[in-house]
Structures are given as structure tokens and as C-alpha cells.
């Protein structure tokens, strides 16, 4: 029974081709330099002669016309409907829509931004992570703390707006933040609300433009209503949405 190498030699390629596997190459090399070199040589010459004869098969003129026509086998053109239905295209389109939505949301959010919005968001994270034990216990009206901040900490215009002046406090503290600088934090009994007072951020021209309306910032489930007076920002922060704060702001207007 012939071994594997002999079987491979039986169908050895007539001419050298790329991609001949290693077993075949080894079998050919051994055959060319072994005892069966003459037999293998005869086989190769035999195969080459037949292949030459095959190449000499004339192609009928009528058939040859087919070879000239380049459009004989049309190139497949995918219609737009087929492309749209392709799952890969659907997945990419969905991903792009989601990314586009996120980008649009971020852009829209920043369009509403005011100088100091980043500082306000940073303080929302402080509010979310703090516990009341960090504060100095102090039970009074929030509006009464302006004097304390001025007298004890020399913080001028750190005033709690009228809307929130009557809220009862649990405690307060003043601390320095690397980005926000001097911050006054007040803990309120009402719905665990927190107030922050911090220096306003100048705009691109270096001017500080106060605003008396309420502007909102949101971060990780917390919302802050910010107003700016006398170069100092006041933020009322609450766990929840804008609606939860709107109630307090409208109540005061009435």
C-alpha cells in the first residue's frame, strides 16, 4: 500500500504554484533526490506534456467573443433598501444615533450653562457624598448665617436669598476647594436640602455678570438651583429633579 508521500506525489502539481503545502513540498524534494527520481521525472514530464496539450485546445471564435465582453458577469450592485436592511448597517446606525443623542444632549446642556455651572456641578458631588456629621451643628434660620460667614470667615455677600432665608438649618461649614475656592455649605432640615455659597466665575471677558433668575444644574440624580448676586453664587441642592426645587421657588413668588 502506498504511503502518504507516494499518494501526494501522485497528484504533485504540474507547475510550481504558490500555496503548496509543506507535506507536498517535502515529498517532491525527496522524490527528486531519492531512488525514485527517474520515475518521478517521467511523471512530471508526462504531466507537463499533457498540460501543454490542454493549453493548446483551441477556443471557438464564437466562444472567444464571450471573453471580450467584460460585462458578461455583472458586478453586483446593492440597492439602498438592501443596504438599509443589513443588520450591520442597522447596528452602526443605532450606535451613531445614540452617540448623536448623547452629544446633542451634552451640547444642549452646555448651551444653557452659565459661568460657574461646572463649579456648581462639582459641589453637587460634594453634597451627594457628604454626611451631616462633617458640619458644625447649628440650628437657626438660613438667612441668619450671612453675618456668621462675614464675621467669622470674612466672606462678604455670602447671603442666602429670601426664597430660602427662613429654612431651618442643621449645620454649616466653610471649606476650601481646589477649583471652587471658599465654599460655605449649609445643611437644611427640609428634605435634607443643602445650600452652597461660592465665588462667582467670571465670563470669557473676565467680567462677573450677576443673574437674579434661577438656573439649574443636574448631576447623578441631584439638582441644583443657582442664582448669582454680588459676585457670589447661591445654590440650593436637592436629591431629585428640577420639579422638586421649582415648588420652593414658585411658592416664594406667590
Amino acid at each position, binding site marked *: 500500500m502506498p504511503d502518504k508521500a507516494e499518494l501526494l506525489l501522485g497528484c504533485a502539481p504540474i507547475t510550481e504554484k504558490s500555496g503548496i503545502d509543506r507535506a507536498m513540498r517535502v515529498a517532491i524534494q525527496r522524490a527528486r533526490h531519492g531512488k525514485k527520481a527517474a520515475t518521478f521525472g517521467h511523471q512530471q514530464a508526462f504531466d507537463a506534456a499533457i498540460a501543454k496539450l*490542454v493549453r493548446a485546445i483551441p477556443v471557438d471564435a464564437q466562444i472567444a467573443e464571450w471573453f471580450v465582453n467584460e460585462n458578461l458577469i455583472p*458586478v453586483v450592485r446593492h440597492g439602498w433598501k438592501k443596504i438599509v436592511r443589513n443588520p450591520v448597517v442597522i447596528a452602526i446606525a443605532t450606535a451613531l444615533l445614540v452617540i448623536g443623542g448623547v452629544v446633542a444632549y451634552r451640547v444642549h446642556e452646555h448651551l444653557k450653562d452659565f459661568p460657574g455651572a461646572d463649579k456648581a456641578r462639582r459641589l453637587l458631588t460634594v453634597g451627594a457624598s457628604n454626611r451631616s456629621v462633617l458640619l458644625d451643628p447649628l440650628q437657626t434660620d438660613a438667612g441668619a448665617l450671612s453675618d456668621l460667614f462675614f464675621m467669622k470667615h470674612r466672606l462678604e455677600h455670602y447671603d442666602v436669598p429670601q426664597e430660602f432665608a427662613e429654612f431651618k438649618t442643621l449645620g454649616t461649614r466653610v471649606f476650601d476647594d481646589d477649583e471652587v475656592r471658599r465654599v460655605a455649605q449649609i445643611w437644611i432640615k427640609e428634605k435634607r436640602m443643602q445650600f452652597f455659597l461660592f465665588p462667582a466665575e467670571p465670563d470669557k471677558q473676565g467680567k462677573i455678570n450677576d443673574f437674579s433668575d434661577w438656573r439649574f444644574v443636574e448631576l447623578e440624580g441631584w439638582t441644583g438651583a443657582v442664582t448669582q448676586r454680588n459676585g457670589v453664587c447661591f445654590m440650593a441642592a436637592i436629591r431629585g429633579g428640577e420639579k422638586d426645587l421649582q415648588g420652593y421657588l414658585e411658592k416664594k413668588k406667590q
Partner: protein
Amino acid sequence: MAVTTKNLPQLYRFCFLMTGDAAKAQAAFQDTVREAATRSEGDEPPPDRLWFFRDARWRCVALGEQGIQAEPGMLEEVEISATAPRQIEQLEPAQLALWVSAAPEPQRSALALFYLDEFSLAELLSLLEMKAGELSELICSGRRQFQSWLDSTIAYYEGETFDAGQG
């Protein structure tokens, strides 16, 4: 690999070897190319190079079954001769095609595809749906049978060839 019109002459030669008849080869060739064109226009994936030969093979086999067929039987086998290339030089392509087309399947397809010298071993095995050992046996016995036929058709004596009168 994409199929262009450059590959088509080999496809025609394959059809000619398989059928041994120019008209049948032309019919098989044209039907295959038309089928490929239809597939390309439809929703099916574009045919590759091997598809053309696979499709043409079965068309040629079907055409071969329509006409007069060679009687099945054991052909004489002799070892390949050193003078075989010179004997083969005396042949016309049509004689070779007649001999190949008379071989039984799958030997006919194996010989036709192998001597096109177009495909790698892996491609041949894929086209013929057989193992290397089977292909080797078919090719080797084909060589010996062809040598026997050559000897009976074209004898060779010390540099001169003589038609044995059976071509």
C-alpha cells in the same frame, strides 16, 4: 477569487475535456456563464472561480449521459514511459479530449481538472469532494491507462514516432 472573463478560456477547455465535443462544451460553457450572470443579478452571492467549474462539471456530466457512451470496462495499464512526452506531442487536443471524456466519473473530472494546471491540491479536493488518496489513485491509474493508449496509438522508436493506426 473573483471571476473575470480572463478565467473563461480555462472553463471552456475544461468543458471540452469533459465532453470531448466542441458543441457540447460550448453548450455547457454558455449555460454556466448565463447561470452566473443570473445569480449576480439576483440576491444570491456572486459566484467564485470554483463555482464556475463545479457548475460546469455537472452540466458536462449531464450532457455526456445524453449521447453515445463508452462501454465500462477495465483498461490496460502500463508504467509511464520516458518517451511519453514525445508521443503526446504527436497528439491533437481533440484526441486527448476524446480520451478524457471517455473515462468514468469521477476519474474524468479529476483528470480534466488536474491537467488544466489551474488549481491547487486543496482546490482540486474541494471541487471533486474527495480525499487526496482517492485523487492520487485516480490520476495515477489515469496516467498508466493513457500511456497504454498512447503506446497502442502512437509508438515511438529511437527518436521517430509512428502512428500505430488507432487514433
